[in-house]
């Protein structure tokens, strides 16, 4: 895993932006800002799906394994 990304949080942010972009009273500056942020999010989420790997660690059991 190259970067510590929270897929769920980013995905939720993208959903919010998409909903905002559907408003018809949106200021053009806001719309542009949302649009650019949306493109960044799509890229980051795609990268996550392509590259994120799982990490497995064994914890030493504290119980007696006699």
């Amino acid at each position: 895993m190259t970067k510590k990304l929270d897929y769920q949080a980013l995905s939720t942010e993208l959903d919010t932006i998409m909903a905002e972009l559907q408003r018809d009273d949106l200021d053009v500056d806001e719309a542009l800002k949302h649009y650019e942020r949306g493109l960044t999010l799509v890229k980051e989420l795609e990268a996550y799906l392509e590259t994120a790997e799982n990490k497995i660690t064994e914890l030493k059991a504290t119980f007696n394994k006699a």
Partner: protein
Amino acid sequence: MPLDAGEPEVSVSDFVALLNQALDYAFPSVTIVGELANFRVSKNRWVYFDLKDEFCSVKFFGTVYQLPGPLEDGMLLRVRGQPKLHNLYGFSVNVLSMAPAGEGSIRKAADLLQAKLTTEGLFDEGRKRPVPYPPKRIGLVTSRQSAAYADFTKIINARWGGVQIDVIDVQVQGEPAPAQIVGAIEQFNALGEPPEVIVIIRGGGSAEDLAAFSTEQVTRAVAASRVPTIVAIGHEVDLSLAELAADVRASTPSNAAELLVPDRKALKAHLARQADELLRLGAVQMQAARQLLSLKTDSLHQYIEDLIKTKRSVYQTYQKLLAVLSPEATLKRGYAIVRSNGGQVLRSAKIKPGAIVEVQLADGRFTAQTKEKP
């Protein structure tokens, strides 16, 4: 019968001590399988019972803490214990551990325990908590050598990434299994930063192999876990009490992995649709902005045109008024302007007789001399 003079005599206490020494030497522990009979609990603490077969019966003594769950006479039990001759109560086997044996007894024990724990509310739907989807950190309780472990990690890796999986390796069958599984659940719960979900899995096996997951201690530990739990034991048809007590029951270890994380293939497709939609929405917003700008330009043009038109009509009115009020227009109506010889406009008739004045008419001018007043 005459006493053998050569044989040493011992006291009763010495005999008991000697016999126990011999028993200890011969059987540091012994595991006996037999049918439960005369089962009774005394003072909520001590347990007395017999194990018997067709020909023999042996007494056992233990504590309620060693019980695998509720028991009934007639069940087949596997008991590990130490044979002892008690100084007052005679011979019995002191229980070290005990478990039901054989499919029928295991099923019966599980049924009795299930009935007891159901009454306590351990399996109530209202106790079930949601499991984070997908979790960022999983606490896995299983045997690392098992097929269940291999299946689970394979599916998680195939579907998703970025998950931290902490594993505690436990025995999933045999006598130490319940204590180890409980220990692992408690260890995860006691961590400063516990995982978001505890996953307890084991592959298929005989009822006896899966028995650890229907013991009272494991079932209670699953129900008591502060961290939400997913439990998958055996195949789809096997249903352990730990699964009933879990927040989520998965049919198999692979199914547990599927329930825990989304499939990245499906998410990629969804993301591609979202990206298309984002482009479309961006274009729609820009188009709307452009339309709004064009509307504003049009109305600006209209405003300026209207303004010019209004001003122009005001000027035209002024022009007409000016034309009407001009001296030329007055002269045209027959008036005349009379000026003194010095060129000053005369507004009064008080002038000397014989003075020369200039008279201007609409069309030309002449000089004149004044006479006496009439």
